[in-house]
């Protein structure tokens, strides 16, 4: 998936990925897509929940890597 801005949160646990996302999204203009890269499995549920509350659109979630070292890529479209 194509993103306008990337945010690397590798190595950070909850709540940091969400907090960093909420800060980063402010730099985007509506319609742009932010790619959040995380290795915290919680992001799979947390990012859609964050989007639901804040009104931004969850447009994709990708998983990469082996089972014990998974990297998640969440795509959020700014409302």
């Amino acid at each position, binding site marked *: 998936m194509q993103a306008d801005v990337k945010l690397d949160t590798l*190595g*950070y*646990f*909850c*709540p*940091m990925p*969400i*907090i960093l*996302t*909420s800060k980063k999204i402010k730099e985007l203009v509506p319609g742009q897509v932010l790619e959040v890269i995380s290795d915290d499995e919680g992001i799979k549920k947390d990012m859609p929940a*964050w989007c639901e*509350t*804040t009104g931004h659109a969850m447009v994709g979630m990708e998983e990469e890597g082996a089972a014990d070292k998974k990297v998640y890529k969440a795509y959020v479209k700014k409302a």
Partner: protein
Amino acid sequence: MNATHIEPATALAELKETKPDKVTLVVLSGDMDRVMAALIIATGAAAMGMQVTMFFTFWGLNAIRKENVSSSPKDWLRRAFGWLNKGGASRLPLSRFHFGGLGTTMMKKVMKDNRMPGIPELMETAKDLDVKMIACTTTLGLMGISKDTLIDGIDQLAGVSTYLNEARHGSVNLFI
């Protein structure tokens, strides 16, 4: 007569802007793990655009006290109490496995190695995200803590009515 036409969508958007979801947290505990949970909820909620108020009381006040600064209450009982009850965000003990400080030190090391934010970092993040912090005046007095020994950025010194007035509008109200 001039009738003002209001676009429903804009009006609703403004309403959402002025009345966001509200979260209130009463932090009674001064245990590191509990205060950490409270701060994670607070910062998470603030990141979700919710309005957050933390009300610190009793042992929870230790989280918002400056380090190595002691109040000097006039009576010896509260002064003695102050020697035993040290404050400071980085000095909070674990609720279990504190082991005179050894367990807590080890936990902090594990957290640091895993890039998990500690209490001082979470407090900074909370302030950065405009989490409102209130210190309870009754317990400040009871425990002999003077307000000048609290950290900067405490929004209010208040009591139960202030808390209830906030909680009344809260969709999430927690007691930790």
